[in-house]
């Protein structure tokens, strides 16, 4: 009884959280930067935020990128601040990585690579979703 209550509570707290889906490559548009700004704003107001990387969005996490080579301010470096904003749930779609022949080599730690079904389940446990 107690365990099912805590589970329901867990589910509710999950449902109250915000999910942000990143689906665009990092340098050719402002979507990645905008998503980052929203995540950090919610984080600084102690709102629960989970980040999802899907499609070309997975390129935002790949190691050894250098935006300065294309004259862009390197906002990807700010990803390492997630832990200070208590953003701990970072999910990557495994199929998107495989399609793009990418290794699971990311420039931040504690990234969870999920197969399509689990990725969908994790996303569906959130009540609010923003897609960039």
């Amino acid at each position: 009884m107690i365990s099912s209550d805590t589970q329901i509570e867990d589910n509710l707290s999950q449902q109250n959280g915000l999910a942000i889906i990143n689906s665009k490559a990092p340098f050719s548009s402002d979507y990645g930067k905008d998503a980052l700004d929203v995540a950090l704003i919610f984080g600084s107001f102690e709102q629960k935020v989970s980040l999802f990387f899907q499609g070309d969005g997975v390129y935002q996490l790949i190691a050894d990128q250098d935006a300065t080579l294309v004259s862009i301010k390197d906002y990807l470096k700010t990803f390492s601040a997630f832990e200070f904003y208590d953003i701990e749930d970072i999910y990557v779609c495994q199929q998107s990585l495989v399609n793009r022949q990418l290794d699971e080599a990311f420039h931040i730690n504690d990234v969870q690579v999920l197969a399509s079904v689990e990725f969908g389940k994790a996303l569906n446990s959130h009540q609010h979703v923003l897609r960039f």
Partner: protein
Amino acid sequence: MSTLHLVRKSAFTTNDFAQCLSVLDQQDSIVLMDDGCYNLKHPLMDSLIKRANSTISINVISNHAQARAIETLAVVKQIKMNDVVELTFTHQKVITWQ
């Protein structure tokens, strides 16, 4: 009539690169720039290299690929942005795929 194809979009999200390849002629050249660099890892690239048989020149803007941490292929020539200016003069037409 040779054409210079400037590919600026990822084939993983748009079909611009596929459309480019469908009209590609033997004496044409391709330049991968911006998000087009991601196409180096796309299955379409393998089929292009197979059919390229040294007449189609495939180029990539080196700093655009490097910024995205993409390894370039030996058969793809690394060029700079100012080399593209040269290429626009050596081809009759330019098509930008974006």
